[in-house]
């Protein structure tokens, strides 16, 4: 199957990793697992400070489904179980120690129940998402289909080759076989023209062409087989699929992470192999990010859907990208709205920069005041889905359950609105609105 999308936009941001950049290994001294990265997961800790855990051993479990775990990315000692307001569990920190055996999992003679339990217990199910609602899948439910995206189209993402290569074909096939046993439907793998691994046995391959958000799995589902009310599908990226295959082959969880350190404020963008949830300070130092008097913003993830973290914080799920840009709160710009400077990044042709084939160095300012929705069609142009974004957003704001259902709340995730939020002249926090709408639906329906 081949699908071409015409809507969307690739943000021309400076600070990508050079094509010939190699991968450096940086051993993580400490990691943290933050349950907030896994929407729908209500954490109960399995460990206390001082406990020794192996890589892949559970750190916490879900309140509703105790078999659903988040696991330690490395072997070591638990040094902190950090709680916030109302004792909400924020993160568990593990410091590396040598000589601790990784947790082993039994991968033989798997029935469907055992297969789900394996994924849930190894922390890999938590790395998947379920649509509707874009939450961690419910282990008791049977998904209609499973969608895997092998397209990383968000700004400054590493090329596919940095994540999976020829050597991983066997792992992908093993992973696909396991996933196929979980659904009566199909396992779809969406890829673009950079995919060189041929057909993965057991999967339905779909080739997409287009600009970001072509890599968003929600966009792919919408164009392959949309989610209807009462159905659910599971989604994951190809790296998680490889991890599933790795677990099947070796019986241990692959908790390593290939992280791109990118962005306009990064001196030497680079790729490092480290542990999931690693402390970011050594990674930033490796990429030459130093305190230079500018206010930096460190984002775990890409600039559209990432989480801003402290420079002494930890990587957040999906442990793929660390983007650094100027925060911009120390900049005074005289009449910026009238600017004809070619360094302004915009989807609009009133900015000369729009016509230049150049990369921009944007900062984190809103670049305007928040307004009501004024221009029409802005969101549509950024969403290649059969959704009327403006009307869905209004239904969400009005908390109108019927309208939300009718307009497709089950088909979307906050990330599908990210590009529209970037382009929005009225600077409305669209992802926040969608996230609240999804939470509301989960509570009410």
């Amino acid at each position, binding site marked *: 199957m081949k699908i071409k999308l015409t809507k969307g936009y690739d943000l021309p941001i400076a600070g990508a990793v050079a094509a010939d950049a190699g991968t450096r290994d940086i051993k993580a001294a400490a990691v943290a697992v933050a349950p907030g990265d896994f929407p729908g997961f209500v954490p109960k800790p399995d460990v206390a400070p001082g406990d020794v855990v192996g890589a892949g051993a559970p750190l916490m479990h879900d309140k509703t489904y105790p078999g659903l775990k988040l696991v330690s990315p490395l072997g070591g000692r638990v040094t902190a179980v950090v709680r916030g307001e109302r004792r909400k569990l924020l993160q568990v920190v593990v410091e590396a120690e040598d000589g601790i055996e990784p947790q082993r999992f039994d991968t033989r003679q798997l029935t469907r129940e055992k297969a789900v339990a394996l994924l849930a217990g190894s922390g890999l199910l938590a790395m998947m998402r379920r649509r509707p609602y874009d939450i961690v899948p419910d282990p008791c439910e049977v998904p209609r289909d499973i969608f895997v995206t092998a397209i990383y189209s968000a700004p400054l993402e590493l090329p596919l080759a940095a994540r999976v290569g020829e050597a991983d074909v066997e792992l992908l096939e093993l992973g696909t076989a396991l996933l196929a046993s979980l659904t009566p439907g199909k396992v779809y793998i969406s890829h673009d023209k950079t995919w060189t691994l041929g057909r993965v046995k057991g999967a339905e391959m779909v080739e997409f062409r287009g600009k970001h958000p072509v890599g968003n799995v929600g966009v792919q589902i919408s164009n392959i087989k949309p989610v209807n009310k009462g159905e659910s599908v599971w989604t994951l990226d190809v790296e998680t699929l490889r991890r599933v295959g790795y677990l099947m082959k070796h019986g241990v969880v692959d908790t390593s992470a290939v992280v791109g350190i990118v962005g306009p404020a990064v001196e030497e963008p680079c790729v490092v192999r480290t542990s999931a949830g690693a402390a970011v300070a050594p990674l930033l130092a490796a990429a030459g990010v130093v305190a230079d008097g500018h206010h930096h913003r460190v984002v775990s993830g890409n600039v559209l859907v990432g989480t801003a973290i402290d420079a002494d914080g930890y990587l957040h799920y999906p442990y793929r990208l660390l983007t650094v840009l100027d925060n911009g709160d120390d900049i005074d710009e005289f009449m910026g709205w009238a600017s004809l400077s070619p360094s*302004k990044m915009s989807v609009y042709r009133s900015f000369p920069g729009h016509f230049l084939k150049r990369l921009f160095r944007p900062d984190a300012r809103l670049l305007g005041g928040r307004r009501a929705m004024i221009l029409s069609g802005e969101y549509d142009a950024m969403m290649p889905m059969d959704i009327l974004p403006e009307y869905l957003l209004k239904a969400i704001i009005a908390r109108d359950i019927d309208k939300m259902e009718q307009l497709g709340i089950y088909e979307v995730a906050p990330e599908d609105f990210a590009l529209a939020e970037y382009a929005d002249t009225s600077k409305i926090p669209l992802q926040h609105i969608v996230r609240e709408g999804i939470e509301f639906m989960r509570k009410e329906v």
Partner: protein
Amino acid sequence: MIDSARPAFEPGGRLSAFGSVFDGFETFLFTPRTVSGPASVHVHDANDSKRTMIIVVLALMPCFLFGMYNTGYQHWLALGAEEMPLWPLMLYGFLAILPKVAVSYFVGLGIEFAFAQWRKEEIQEGFLVTGILIPMICPVEIPLWMLAVATAFAVVFAKEVFGGTGYNIVNVALVARAFLFFAYPGHMSGDKVFVATGKALGYGTPVADGFTCATPLGQIATHSGGDLMLTGVDGHVFTAWDAFLGLIPGSFGETSVLCILIGAAVLLFTGMASWRIMAGVFAGGLCMGWIANVFASPVYPASLLPAWEQLLYGGFAFAAVFMATDPVTAARTNTGKWIYGVLIGVMAVIIRVYNNGYPEGAMLAVLLMNVFSSLIDWCVVQANIRRRMRRLTAKTSES
């Protein structure tokens, strides 16, 4: 300096009653330092609402400058002048429109500032466009106090009561015009208001009392029997070329189709207005004009015009480019925009041709469709909902 003045305007400060005004000027002068939230998009497009509005104002400038020239030109014609000196004409036009623009902005922005302060909100820039549109779509001889009353009425009752910029249902500038049209018809139509006859702020020579000249559409509406001849201030017969260039009597900014097309090009190039709506209005107007012309009858003199000439006269082109495309009051779905545009074009010509009481229908057509735009969108949204429902039923019937 701004930083040091800020505390006085913050809540509790001695000038806190002007907090919104201070904010408004500060964000006008300096891009706000507000940054993205920790879990949102971390970069934003450079375009904002201020720039959007200013581009629309820039797109209006060719019409505005030509309006100045034409006001002077018509005045000189009325004086019986043989030569048309450029700069005196422009100066006269400028002085004639200056008080109107000043009054419109003063009244409108005053009300906006007051409402923003009352609601403790940032001042919004929607009136930048409305404020210049209002004098441009009124006859140049409109008394200032009427303009002030109409602007105040429109801003309060068409915009602020709905919640301000972005929430209004009908086009604010057109409400101001409609208010004048129905409250003071003598000053909004007829043969005495479209050519400036007095001194403009003391400049120029007054034209003799009793001078009259109607707009082309005014002449058509009052036409009875005989050949339809449209004549200008000095009695020469208009050609379509005159109407295209705009050297005809009419409301200040709307006579020149050429300048309107330049404005349209700016709006479309910068992506600030919908090409679907503009194309729809012109297509609808042409189509209805053609139908009217096929069934032409002397009872309805405007039906004698060929379809394409319908687009050249009156406020049709201006409404298509600057009024119908106001995104807040227009249809917001792509299909809806086509329907909305076509219906405006059709309605404008229907009113113009078949209602002899109203020589021009563009204003009423846009206002009418403003009201119906939500209904049009509702139908388009229903189609999306039905598609989703069909998918669901197909699935249920399969299983």
